[in-house]
């Protein structure tokens, strides 16, 4: 398969970027999207040109590093998959593919397609954890947890913090990410104890970092590679508002 790639190139955070067009040829349909970019970069290096910078790590959909906006969609075509899980058979032979970095004020571009997603780390540092004494590992069944609660918690914990939610949201809102983190702990007895403090601290940090306000469009849920439901946003709203009214 042959493709024309329109890729955002930007030297560094301060430089003005722009699109550059490249051709890649003889790409197997079973090549992953990131492998296709590897092939492009290999060609560019052979031509003595600067390769395209893009984030990637595990290439199996669990690390949350790959973060490309492909043809207008976060993580490209197909739902419930990260960029590294997209294969070139998803595209038409001869298609022009536009590749952009995440666009959100809280995720500044560092270089080409790489953005700084440190804002998510700072939200987590504000409260996305459980404070426990680090003694020996307790027995797994010491605290009984209803299956439905454990399932809901695990669904929320599937969030890989890739940033697709804020990057897709027309408001640049990080609510789905914060909600997933708050919800995954709020549904477990260990996390319940610090629920109120966590919700308030994480929302305050999210606001402070300049993320937008959720308007319930549901675009984040549609583009989330882990298909995390906006029901977790409702739970975050509940946690936050009840914590505030208790103050």
């Amino acid at each position, binding site marked *: 398969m042959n493709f024309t790639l*329109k890729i955002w190139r930007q030297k560094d955070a301060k430089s003005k*970027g722009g*699109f550059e067009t490249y051709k890649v040829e003889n790409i197997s349909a079973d090549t992953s999207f990131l492998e296709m970019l590897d092939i492009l970069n290999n060609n560019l290096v052979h031509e003595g040109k600067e390769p395209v910078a893009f984030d990637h790590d595990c290439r199996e959909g669990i690390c949350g590093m790959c973060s490309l*906006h492909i*043809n*207008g*969609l976060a993580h490209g075509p197909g*739902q419930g998959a990260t960029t590294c899980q997209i294969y070139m058979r998803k595209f038409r032979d001869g298609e022009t593919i*536009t590749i*952009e970095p995440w*666009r*959100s*004020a*809280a995720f500044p*571009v560092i270089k080409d397609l790489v953005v700084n997603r440190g804002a998510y780390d700072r939200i987590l540092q504000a409260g996305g954890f459980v404070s426990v004494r680090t003694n020996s590992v307790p027995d797994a069944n010491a605290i009984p947890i209803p299956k439905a609660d454990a399932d809901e918690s695990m669904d929320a914990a599937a969030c890989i913090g890739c940033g697709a939610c804020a990057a*897709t949201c*027309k*408001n*640049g*809102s990080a609510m789905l990410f914060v909600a997933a983190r708050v919800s995954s702990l709020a549904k477990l007895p260990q996390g319940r104890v610090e629920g109120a403090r966590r919700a308030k601290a994480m*929302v*305050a940090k*999210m*606001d402070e970092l*300049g*993320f*937008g*306000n*959720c*308007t*319930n*469009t*549901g*675009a984040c*849920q*549609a*583009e989330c590679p882990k298909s995390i*439901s*906006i*029901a977790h*946003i*409702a*739970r*975050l*709203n*509940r*946690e*936050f*508002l*009840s914590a*505030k*009214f208790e*103050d």
Partner: protein
Amino acid sequence: MSCFLSNSSLGKKLVMSITGCFLVLFILFHMSMNITAIISPEGYNAICEFLGANWYALAGTLVLAAGVVVHFIYAVVLTLENYKARGSQRYAVTVKEPNVSWASKNMLVLGFIILGGLLIHLFNFWAKMQLVEIMGEHTNSLGFGPADGAALIAYTFSHWYYVVIYLVWFLALWFHLTHGIWSMFQTAGWANDTWYPRLKCIANVVATIVFLGFAAVVIVYFIQSLCPCNGGAC
């Protein structure tokens, strides 16, 4: 607590949700009152007389105006913050995400259309009814009594352009409510995956009832105005 309602994103959205809920309840009341004008113009005028510029109607008007103003100001503030959060560099290519409604992405634009319609409506009715009473006058600029709402409806909707403007207004309101009604439950935290289809269904049903209820009065009075014999007896 007053702080979080103006400083925090979730607090500001709660204010949008509560004021939105209040406005939906008012709209349902207004629509029920309007339908009386189809069944009995005399009955409708009796309601106009009962409300008029009495203290409870004036207090209600002030609370209602405050609700509209707060809902509007918060909407503008939230949208400006969202615009800033989106960043100056936008995507070159965008596509509609699956299951994302058009209304949910255009609430402010719809809100501006609704506000524009409201201003026209205040000019057409409030300024010729309650305001006339507040000013202590006995007839409005059209020569009707301030409690003769039915005559004012008949006069206004004998003009085809007001019929069109009002129907566009109601349509914008329909779109706004289809997203706004379920969204207010989500913002208050009263939603989950089981209830989303139900809440969206309730939102669509309420929005449609509101649209049909308001539009019925406009259309019935417009058709009556087309009849050569007065009062729609033909």
